[in-house]
């Protein structure tokens, strides 16, 4: 089923040492100064607006891109905007080592694909994944393929609830 696959170019959200950043919280993803915004289309431009080194992300990313980050991604507040802003930019999926619990729910409920890849830094450090590599992820098979390098990796599968909700679009339409 094609809706459970994505193909796109990678953004590795890294620090100056080239490590994927851990603990990126919702204030760094979507700052509390903009929480009055309720229109999804207006959210994109604020994505990573408070994350050092990545404030220009909305200008440089392209629809169809896939975001990679470290552990505890989206910790902090319950704001849905921190998920919706990626949707607004046309980001196709997020892959991280782990997520803040509320963030994970928010993404699943709005039918936005987030995936967990344990020890994600190895992808960068050992498997040599680079920014703008083209990859393909199969959510149901649990497979991540780096098309640019030809390498294939195992990734955590979607849970049943995640699949059911994504099939219907969102929690509100099930």
């Amino acid at each position, binding site marked *: 089923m094609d809706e459970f696959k994505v193909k796109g170019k990678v953004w590795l959200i890294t620090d100056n040492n080239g490590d994927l950043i851990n*603990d990126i*919280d919702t*204030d*760094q993803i979507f*700052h*509390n*100064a903009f*929480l*009055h915004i*309720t229109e999804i289309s207006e959210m994109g431009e604020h994505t990573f607006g*408070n994350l*050092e080194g990545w404030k220009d992300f909305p200008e440089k990313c392209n629809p169809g891109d896939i975001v990679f980050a470290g*552990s*505890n991604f989206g*910790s*902090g*507040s*319950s*704001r*849905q905007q921190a*998920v919706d802003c990626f949707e607004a930019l046309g980001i196709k999926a997020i892959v991280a080592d*782990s997520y*803040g*619990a*509320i963030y994970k*729910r*928010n993404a699943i*409920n*709005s039918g936005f694909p987030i995936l967990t890849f344990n020890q994600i830094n190895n992808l960068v450090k050992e498997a040599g994944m680079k920014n703008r590599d083209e990859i393909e992820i199969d959510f149901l098979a649990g497979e991540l393929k780096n098309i640019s390098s030809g390498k294939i990796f195992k990734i955590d599968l979607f*849970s*049943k*609830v995640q699949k059911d909700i994504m099939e219907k679009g*969102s*929690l*509100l*339409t099930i």
Partner: protein
Amino acid sequence: MSGKTVIEKIFTNHSEEDISPGKIVWIDLDVVTARDFGGPNVVKNFNNNYEGQSVFDPSKVFFTFDLTVPPKTIQYANNQMICRNFAKEKGIKVFDIDKGIGTHTLIENGLVQSGSIVVGTDSHMNILGAVNSFGQGMGDVDITFGFRYGRTWFEVPATVKVNIKGDPSYDYSAKDLVIKVLSILKTDKLLGKSVEFYGELIKKLNLPERITFLSMITEMGGIVGFIPFNENTSNEIKEMAGLDKVAPEIKADEDASYFEIIDLDISDIESMVSAPPYPHNGVKISDLDKVYVDFGFVGSCTNGRIEDLLKVWAILKGKKIKEGVQLAIVPATVEVYKQAFEKGILKDLLDAGAIISNPGCGGCAQGHIGMTGKGEVMVSTGNRNFPGKQGDGFNYLTSPEVVAYSVLNGFISDREL
């Protein structure tokens, strides 16, 4: 079959399914709330998806405005108006801009009991663990579904048991204790877990101290935390909730099974601060170089009770804070404000140089009671010091006592110097 942990029991009481960690189950909700942030998005989602339909039970759905109260911009005013209009249409009660922090207001109004499940657009909803109930922050899609159906799906969290031990000689506060524990466990040990804390050092905490401690489970990455009641806890809850009777405590079974058991020795605890940029960057004040402060903040869901204000008052009474330093005090709720008024501490605090604001979230909502400029230092009793959270400067989290001494001396300190 082995016994159940606290969270497993609460889930069992709210679900028709068998409860075991890791399983995704549907649970019934006792109370569903939305705040002025998230609330307007909920209304929008509701109207887009459930036009003309009612909420599942108007007596169990609430708006709690606490972030920008009163609204500081037209956008916020419009958002609150959208919620009020929706509430009128659906027969929902609004705890409006005069009431204070939503979670505290829910407890004070007797809407949360031992064993309740409460969800809202607030990531510190798990504070309700202090009254032995399961509070969970959620985004607006989740809450919209809760408004309509009064239920939600949840992956039953595994439970970690944390035994707090040691023989500390220092007279520490609940905030010191939570910063200490957070600095040891960091954000990964408890990620996605329910946590039960045991040991005399934790069991002896009174209700406001439990609120302080358990509010920072969020910063530990945990789902919710519980502490067994001591002989006073039930009475303290009754008093805060204005109830004659509260539901009995939900306790874990003796033979409950835990994901992990962690023993923590806190014998070497002293006055602590969380140095920026992370709440888990716990440092003893005695290990800190001299840090000059520009701004002090006392309040938030973590330290905004009358007991916290009294500690500050006891230190600042009859004194003046350092010239050039500002201190903002924000009571958590209007009830706390009234208590402060009745106890007559407000004048002393004003004389000392404090700004006293109306109740609410104050410090968190982007400048509602002031922010730091670039490089300025704030000492705050809040629970988050992420970059940009409360201005462009550096934010140290600490106890009300340390904030008071620091604004008195002009640098971070835990005694008058």
